[in-house]
């Protein structure tokens, strides 16, 4: 990580491309002079033909191996070293004239972080190594501990690490472990920070903190540690200057590029609230949130969901609009039906006036006759009673006409009642009679016996029947016909399905084959002053009643308009024996 950050930063600072060569000596594990000599010779031979511009020495735990290395192998090449250790820069190195950087741990800040994360902390157990470097680090930890009042410090610094596992597991609450460097324990065993953390952390009964970043991710809760990336970039800056011929002053600098890091998993393990983590602290090892891990998938899903929601919303809006439109249409249809009824009324108005004048005339004449009889010396009471009875009858008749007219004019909702077909046809006949009389049309009723009642709206059915009857009369007015054929038959019978079929038959010219299929379409009319709504509305009404309306030409002459209506009690008819 350090090396990569260094390379990236150096390439960025120097415009020209840089070639990097890396050699690993792994001196901490193979530390004998012969090997070192062989490695030096190997390097000298390998890079003999290569004009090197800069040698970077990343020093591990032991400086000694590096003491003579750069000047010895590449005497004329400027060299920069980097170390992350507490040891003093060795004298030979200082003398060699090469520049370098020392990165340092920061125990004080780590302790401060520990206290922030565990406010009730009372005791810190420091685990350290026995090597010279370890001791130096521990010295600085001790310095920091002295600067931290209120916390008891215990140093486990001369032990074999593996033997510390048991006491670490028995530590009381409000205690924490702080791991210093352990380049060597009492048994001489060398540990990377990650290794010691892996050993200690699972066993420990309290949180483990670390001075070095290596422990983080391996069991340590956190610490104020060096960030390899930052150090790498720092070194790269020095190296870039060296490449341009200017070595830094002072030659040796000590950097404490400390970053506070905590492990999210460990916070969870010890139940430390994330709220306590200071703002400048990096939380590592946090599991990627669902969002981070499945950004694309989630984005896509959300997009799909949004699209779906939008579609659904649009559909709902559309549905609402359609409903509104349907309601409007329904309302318009009702209004049209009303208008058609009014126009039907207009056609019938004069006839109805006649219809009313008839009984009124009779009443007047009867009254006048009665007056006259009463003036006689011995009035004929039988005659007078008959007159009064007739007056009453005619009054009811006139009232009936007015009631019918009112019910025709009134806009009503579908109001289904049980209707007797014969009665309905008689009523139609009564209403249409005067009109028929004026046109010289005879209306007869032919109904089959035993028709069941139908469940329907009386006024609306009456409207349909009147419309059909008026149409039938029109059909014959238009045609030239000899005497006797000017008649309409209002018929009713049962069809094969047991429905009641009501028909209006005329003896006019009939319908042409082009017109026949269109008669029920709105605004289709053959009349010069017709609206073309009558049959369309009739169709709407009949369909609302669950019936079918149709038109056909008669085999002999004229046309028949008929419609079916379901019988009120179809079951009752099924019980009857069938005739065929």
């Amino acid at each position: 990580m350090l090396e990569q950050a260094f390379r990236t930063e150096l390439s960025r600072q120097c415009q020209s491309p840089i070639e990097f060569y890396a050699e690993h000596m792994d001196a901490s594990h193979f530390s004998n002079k012969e090997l070192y000599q062989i490695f030096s010779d190997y390097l000298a031979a390998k890079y003999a033909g290569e004009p090197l511009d800069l040698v970077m020495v990343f020093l591990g735990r032991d400086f000694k191996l590096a003491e003579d290395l750069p000047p010895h192998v590449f005497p004329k090449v400027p060299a920069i070293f980097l170390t992350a250790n507490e040891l003093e820069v060795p004298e030979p190195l200082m003398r060699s004239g090469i520049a370098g950087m020392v990165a340092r741990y920061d125990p004080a800040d780590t302790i401060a972080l520990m206290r922030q994360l565990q406010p009730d902390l009372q005791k810190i157990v420091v685990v350290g190594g026995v090597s010279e470097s370890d001791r130096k680090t521990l010295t600085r930890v001790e310095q920091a501990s002295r600067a931290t009042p209120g916390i008891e410090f215990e140093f486990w610094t001369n032990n074999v690490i593996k033997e510390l596992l048991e006491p670490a597991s028995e530590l009381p609450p409000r205690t924490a472990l702080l791991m210093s460097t352990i380049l060597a324990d009492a048994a001489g065993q060398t540990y990377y920070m990650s290794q010691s953390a892996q050993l200690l952390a699972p066993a420990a009964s309290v949180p483990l903190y670390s001075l070095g970043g290596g422990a983080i991710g391996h069991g340590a809760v956190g610490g104020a540690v060096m960030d390899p990336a930052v150090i790498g970039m720092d070194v790269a800056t020095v190296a870039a200057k060296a490449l341009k011929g200017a070595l830094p002053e002072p030659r040796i600098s000590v950097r404490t590029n400390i970053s506070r890091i905590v492990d999210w998993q460990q916070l969870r393990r010890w139940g430390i609230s994330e709220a306590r983590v200071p703002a400048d602290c990096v939380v590592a090892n946090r599991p990627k949130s669902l969002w981070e891990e499945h950004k694309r998938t989630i984005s896509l899903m959300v997009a799909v969901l949004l699209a779906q929601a939008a579609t659904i919303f649009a559909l709902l809006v559309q549905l609402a609009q359609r409903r509104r439109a349907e309601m409007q249409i329904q309302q318009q249809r009702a209004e049209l039906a009303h208008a058609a009824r009014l126009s039907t009324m207009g056609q019938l108005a004069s006839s109805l006036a006649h219809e009313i004048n008839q009984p009124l005339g009779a009443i007047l004449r009867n009254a006048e006759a009665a007056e006259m009889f009463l003036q006689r010396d011995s009035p004929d009471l039988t005659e007078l009673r008959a007159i009064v009875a007739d007056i009453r009858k005619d009054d009811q008749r006139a009232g009936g006409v007015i009631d019918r007219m009112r019910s025709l004019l009134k806009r009503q909702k579908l109001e289904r009642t049980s209707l007797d077909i014969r009665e309905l046809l008689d009523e139609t006949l009564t209403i249409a009679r005067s009109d028929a009389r004026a046109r010289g049309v005879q209306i007869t009723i032919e109904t089959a016996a035993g028709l069941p009642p139908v469940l329907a709206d009386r006024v609306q059915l009456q409207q349909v029947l009147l419309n059909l009857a008026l149409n039938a009369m029109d059909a014959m007015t238009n045609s030239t016909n000899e005497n006797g054929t000017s008649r309409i038959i209002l018929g009713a019978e049962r069809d094969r399905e047991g429905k009641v079929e009501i028909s209006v038959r005329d003896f006019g010219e009939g319908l042409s084959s082009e017109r026949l299929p269109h008669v029920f379409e709105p605004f289709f009319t053959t009349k010069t002053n017709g609206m073309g709504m009558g049959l369309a509305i009739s169709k709407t009404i009949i369909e609302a009643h669950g019936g079918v309306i149709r038109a056909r030409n008669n085999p002999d002459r004229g046309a028949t308009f008929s419609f079916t209506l379901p019988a009120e009690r179809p079951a009752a008819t099924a019980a009857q024996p069938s005739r065929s």
Partner: protein
Amino acid sequence: MSEPTVFLIDDDASFLTAISRLLRGMGFAVRSFDSAKAFLNELSTTARGCVLVDLKMPGLSGLDLQKSLAQTENPLPVIFLTGQADIPSTVQAMRGGAEDFLTKRAPKEEVAGAIRRAFERDEVERLKRSRLRELRSRLATLTDREQQVLRHVIRGQMNKQIAAELGINERTVKLHRTSVTRKLRAPSVAELTRLCQEVGIEPRRDPDKP
């Protein structure tokens, strides 16, 4: 000869009863029919009075009845009754010689007045018709030659002229004239002329001026 009668025709039974009741009460002789056809079937040549008919009826309407009646030997005067009068049918009825045109709820005095006028007219017409019939029967007794002579006489021609035109003897003309005068019971030329006008016999046209 029967008394003058009101022949009531209306398909509305209720109104028919009421009006016949009223008219009877007013002292008229009344006969009721529920259709024009029924009335025409029963109409006798000797029936007197008038017809009171509903203008609008199924089958034969009032106007149809008026037409049919005019062609019979006994064209009784027709009074129309209507629920409400509309102009076209009123005009048609009056052109057809309707005696009167009344609404069904017209004042009874008006109805009675109309009936009486119709009765009077029926009387007058009836007298006219019977006289005409009589005159025609008298004319029917004339021979062809006598008729020829008559048509010359009523032009005001002298016997001499007639004889010349017909190419017969003047004395023969005189004999024919006497016979005509006797048969038609018209002593003077003036009387003959009036009589001929009455039955519609045209004077013989001047052959020089056709």
